[in-house]
């Protein structure tokens, strides 16, 4: 056990921290002003500004900048104080904008230590405390004594172990030795030996070569690429003659092609391009997902796949915050889905710096699976909780949201084009033209378009909940269902637009550690009830959320 540091006293870190603050200041300045400097450089170049004859003033400017950065670093050091309490660390910093940071040790997820060369010589370290919040970059203790870092680490480790054991995450966990219960710890030692763990335990998904073709077909990138190519073809119009000339020469070169018309040649080229595109996405699917296997071992889900670089993802079941099942148009035709399990964001797993092919705390993604397998995944992740939920978008259990949702979507999609059209008409042809036929046609077109978008989105929207969880469905061309457990919720917002207030509706926004799930346009009372119930579930939950 490291020696006990003083409690309850505001301290400065050692003066060597100035180097740290200097680095941080330079980084901040470089980050925000590099573009400014670049544009100034460009202007100077364009206006042929003679640096050589004015070298003197430039030198002064550089000196001034260096002095300013140095002064800022000194001030930041001077105003940085920290105080240790029995159970927490308090940090005060800033001279223009003063901030006070309160870090209870129980909330610290991990302690990272960095040592520069100077630090090593002087026996100092820079400590970074990881919390699960956003302030990861704020919990810095630059240039403190090694003993303090050791003390902090033992204190935090102790708190974590206590927390893990104290949590009732099933009897199973409690019965195991402490070290094995830590997430990731079970997998790391085996992998450090340089060998991959064979897929033991329960294999849930295994993808075949045929699946690679399907993944390639459904790849959104193919659509985007095709769109980009089409746009490129539009832009290439001026060169059409040149292209046709080349094709013509090709035609004459290959005697058999002589009889074909130019149009046929163009169709052939388009077809060939599509084929190449398809091949490219299939190859990329092979590279990423070849021999993809998903299995469950102990309390964690593991997936592995890839042709050249094999990637392995390990996600602890308890860390999963949200399940996402989606399908686009092509996956719909194929009758398959894409599944994602989102773990808590921004929570570093202790010891996550593993071998190169192991990545922890990443989304667990299954690129292609059947609906029934998705349901198995859900029951595996949620366990005995929220058994009333389903991930399948076609389920009749989903409740529709209010039909006023159509109007809300229409307002959002049609307002800007119609207003823009009105302004354009006014400017181009004067006030009389607003009543004219072209503008009326424009409005009708947009109303029809946004109306059908609104209607379709409303049909696809839906929600479903039981006592322990909620699933939200949405989509326009494809479908998507997000599901989560109430006890993992981080915050709840109820929003009401002017339209919703008139119609007695509200939008429920549930904040999870992995993102936000929204249920729009439901009855105000339902939203309020759900909010109060979710808060009750969270606040009365004794289970850990990650």
């Amino acid at each position, binding site marked *: 056990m490291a020696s006990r540091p003083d409690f309850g006293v505001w301290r400065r870190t050692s003066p060597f921290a100035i180097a740290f603050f200097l680095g941080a200041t330079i980084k901040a300045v470089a980050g925000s002003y590099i573009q400014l400097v670049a544009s100034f450089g460009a202007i100077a170049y364009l206006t042929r500004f003679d640096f050589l004859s004015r070298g003197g003033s430039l030198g002064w400017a550089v000196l001034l900048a260096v002095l300013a950065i140095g002064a800022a670093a000194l001030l930041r050091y001077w105003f940085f104080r920290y105080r240790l309490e029995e159970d927490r660390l308090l940090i005060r910093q800033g001279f223009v904008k003063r*901030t006070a940071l*309160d870090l*209870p040790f129980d909330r610290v997820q991990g302690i990272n230590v960095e040592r520069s060369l100077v630090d090593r010589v002087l026996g100092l370290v820079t400590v970074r405390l990881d919390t699960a919040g956003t302030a990861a970059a704020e919990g810095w203790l630059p240039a403190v004594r090694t003993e303090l870092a050791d003390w902090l680490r033992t204190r935090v480790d102790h708190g974590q172990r206590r927390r893990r054991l*104290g949590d009732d995450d099933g009897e199973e966990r409690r019965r195991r030795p402490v070290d094995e219960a830590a997430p990731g710890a079970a997998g790391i030692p085996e992998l450090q030996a340089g060998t991959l763990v064979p897929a033991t335990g329960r294999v849930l998904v295994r993808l075949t070569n045929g699946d690679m073709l399907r993944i390639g077909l459904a790849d959104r990138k193919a659509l985007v690429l095709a769109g980009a190519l089409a746009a490129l073809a539009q832009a290439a119009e001026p060169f059409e003659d040149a292209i046709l000339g080349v094709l013509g020469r090709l035609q004459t070169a290959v005697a058999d092609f002589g009889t074909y018309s130019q149009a046929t040649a163009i169709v052939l080229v388009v077809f060939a391009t599509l084929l190449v595109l398809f091949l490219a996405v299939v190859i990329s699917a092979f590279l990423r997902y070849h021999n993809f296997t998903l299995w469950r071992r102990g309390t964690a889900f593991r997936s592995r796949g890839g042709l050249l670089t094999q990637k392995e993802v390990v996600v602890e079941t308890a860390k999963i915050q949200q399940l996402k099942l989606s399908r686009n148009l092509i996956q719909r035709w194929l009758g398959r889905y894409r599944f994602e399990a989102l773990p808590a964001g921004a929570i570093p797993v202790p010891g996550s710096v593993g071998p190169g092919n192991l990545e922890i705390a990443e989304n667990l993604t299954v690129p292609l699976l059947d609906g029934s397998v998705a349901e198995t995944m859900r029951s595996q992740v949620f366990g005995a909780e929220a058994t009333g939920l389903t991930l399948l978008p076609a389920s009749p259990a989903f409740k529709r949201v209010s039909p006023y949702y159509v109007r809300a979507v229409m307002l959002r999609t049609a307002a800007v084009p119609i207003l823009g059209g009105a302004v354009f008409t006014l400017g181009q042809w004067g006030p009389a033209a607003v009543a004219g036929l072209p503008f009326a046609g424009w409005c009708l077109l947009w109303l029809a378009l946004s109306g059908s978008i609104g209607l379709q989105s409303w049909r696809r929207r839906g929600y479903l909940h039981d006592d322990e969880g909620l699933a939200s469905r949405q989509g326009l061309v494809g479908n998507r269902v997000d599901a989560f457990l109430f006890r993992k919720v981080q915050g709840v*917002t109820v929003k009401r637009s002017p339209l919703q207030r008139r119609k007695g509706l509200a939008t429920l926004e549930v904040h999870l550690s992995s993102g936000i799930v929204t249920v729009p346009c439901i009855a105000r009372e339902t939203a*309020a009830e759900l909010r109060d*119930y979710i808060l009750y579930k969270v*606040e009365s939950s004794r289970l850990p959320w990650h």
Partner: protein
Amino acid sequence: MFANDEVPTESLPVAERVDWQPLHPRFAQRLQAGVLLRVLVFAGVGAALHYGVATGGMAGLARAAHLLSTTAWTVFGALSLWALAWPAIAVRFRGYAVRDRDILYRSGVLWRSVRAVPFNRVQHTKTDSTPLDRRFGLANLSIFPAGGGAHKIRGLGGETAERLRAFVSARIEAETPETTDSDVGKPA
């Protein structure tokens, strides 16, 4: 609907029926002061531009731009007045409420929202204040739930913010899962 026998929904605490605490009375003035500063800076830049165009030997351009600049100044003036008046309206719709197990914050004039953050999901807390805030004796409280998205309450009195921060910190502590009971500490 809820088929919840153990806790009937009617008996749940209702977040709507709380006493909303208003923000500090000087907060609207502080926001207006901020707007005024920005308006003055923009007006200064605008005036310099205007003067430069009018006297820069580009009389033709100045004449052509006359109508444009009049319109621009009118729009600028109207927007400034609106921006100066807005905080007085908007601040009235903001408020917070601290309950035993969570903190609520409401905001929005047309698009209204009420956000609730349970204390047992809060990671840490922070207060901060800019020089302008301090001039009006104000401070801001940020509450960080896990996974991003600080929950920020602006425009509290300096002391209120500090008291609230201390309270929330104490509540976080109290909400941390109890570890002293039963078989904890006996790993195997």
